[in-house]
């Protein structure tokens, strides 16, 4: 073999756009492979910590306890009516997915950095960090979706009024596609921010999710909030997603201002929000991860 016949690959390491080790690289097929591999890994992390029976018990008990807590508080204000039960059940069930998907990318990044200390090896493989983070988040969201289905099933058993003729499947399909996409996008952007942090980076997604829970009308109508908080709530895609699912499952709109909007308008707002987030999130992720690499934040352990 003659060495002269091999032409060396020229890589300009000084240019960020041509850097082969960034968080976004390769083609769609590479990204799909990374996503599938990370989803399988996520299932191994999230799903095999216990026997399937205990996992199922865990998936049932916590969300049902949460639901019981809200229904118990709701009953303080007077006898429970089916409409109120339906409102709370759907909001609380869907928020399980919101919380998991928002925390997923951050926890994946921090787990790999702090706990398993594998984030450096991801950079050394052909995988991109973005699909790896999305894959981990999607599995967390999927596991939360199982809890959500269980909560809705229990809600139906305790008198939640379902839509006459069954769920509006086309509407449900559309909102269950747009909603998770927007939440994972927000989670990805949040992950890129949290990886810059030293202290309590784990806590920020939970704090954001808790704030969103308060603002998105998950368990009480948006109108109950002060005016300024109503506006923030209306800007969140989760608000529109939960309202869409309520309409698809219950066949009725929420009480208050949100309920007065038509379903096509609701879908339009959700679509616009999702598109904007989907376009912005990978860019924010890239900026955040590049900065973290330059500052040496990806390779540190904060023992938090």
């Amino acid at each position, binding site marked *: 073999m003659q060495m002269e016949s091999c032409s060396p690959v020229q890589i300009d390491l000084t240019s960020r756009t041509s850097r082969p080790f960034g968080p976004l690289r390769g083609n769609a097929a590479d990204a799909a492979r990374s996503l599938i591999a990370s989803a399988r890994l996520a299932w191994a992390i999230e799903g095999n910590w216990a026997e399937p029976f205990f996992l199922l018990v865990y998936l049932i008990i916590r969300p049902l306890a949460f639901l019981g807590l809200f229904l118990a508080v709701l009953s*303080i204000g*007077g006898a429970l009516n089916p409409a109120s039960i339906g409102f709370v059940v759907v909001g609380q069930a869907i928020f399980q997915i919101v919380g998991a998907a928002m925390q997923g990318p951050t926890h994946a990044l921090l787990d790999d950095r702090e706990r398993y200390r594998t984030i450096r090896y991801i950079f050394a493989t052909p995988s991109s960090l973005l699909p790896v983070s999305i894959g981990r988040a999607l599995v967390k969201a999927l596991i939360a979706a199982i809890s959500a289905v269980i909560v809705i099933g229990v809600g139906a058993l305790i008198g939640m009024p379902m839509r006459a003729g069954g769920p509006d499947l086309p509407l449900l399909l559309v909102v269950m596609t747009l909603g998770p996409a927007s939440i994972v996008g927000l989670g990805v952007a949040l992950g890129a921010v949290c990886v810059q942090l030293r202290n309590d980076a784990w806590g920020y997604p939970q704090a954001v999710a808790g704030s969103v829970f308060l603002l998105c009308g998950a*368990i009480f109508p948006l109108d109950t909030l002060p005016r300024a908080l109503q506006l923030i709530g209306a800007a969140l895609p989760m608000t529109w997603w939960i309202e869409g699912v309520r309409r698809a499952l219950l066949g009725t709109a929420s009480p208050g201002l949100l309920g007065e909007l038509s379903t096509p308008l609701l879908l339009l707002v959700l679509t616009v929000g999702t598109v904007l987030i989907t376009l912005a999130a990978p860019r924010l992720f890239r900026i955040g991860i590049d900065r973290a690499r330059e500052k040496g934040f990806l390779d540190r352990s904060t023992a938090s």
Partner: protein
Amino acid sequence: MSAAGVSKDLHARIYAETEWSLSHKLRHAAQSVVGRAYPRIFGMSREPSWLFFDLVFPTLGMCSFVFLLRSRGADEAWISATILASALLTFWTSVIWMMAGQFRWERDSGNMTLYITAPVGLGSIALGMAVGGAVGMAFRAGIIILGGSLLFGAQYEIREPLLLALTMLLGIAAMNALGVCLAAVFLVSGREADHLGDLLNEPMQLLGGLFAPVRSLGIFGLLAIGILPLAPAADAMRQLALPQLAATGLLPVPVELGILAVMFVVFSLLSHASLAYIERRGRADGKLLTRAD
């Protein structure tokens, strides 16, 4: 000096250094308790983000429940009760994560090695964590009550402040004693520990009647008040701070105080035994310092 002489001197020296008098043991244990409590009380001045997170989660939860109650037009007394419950929740959360989960976290982060090699018993360390945690959380609980009262106009009518203080003290003591028992369980748990912590959160808030009266849970409420310190503590405090809600109490306050005292004694004895057992088994099996993941 002969070999026998050296051996005798060494024996006497080792005996003198290890056979402590009772007063020496007590002084040493007290120093250990203070040493472990210190970072919990003063640590927040070095890490303000801890204070932020300790306050933000119960506050967000509190606001959710308050708005839920307002959307239903509930009596304003229940809003005051919700703020009181959020303050109590800070203690329970600290019991789960800073007491029950602490030894496991120390093991995974490498500090457990120091605890085991130091001439300090795990019991003294646990007591220091409890005292420091309770004092630190009392400060946070005060901020929550003050903030909640300013935000939502909560009002309390405390006719027996000493009884209320005793209820809080007994409740916190019983919760922490339970936390030490659970610490042993967390220590032997693998990756289940995180999920176990989650299961002790919302389900226990429901069973403990924190935000809604435990009376409304029927037989489960009675069961909870017998085994979960959160339940009698929350029920008694609501009766004492909000007399207009006294009718929602499950048992008279003196009875609930008695239950809390019994719980404190029983959980303290159990925690002493469980820590000793886990330490002994952990050393024998070589798993005491082994990371779970």
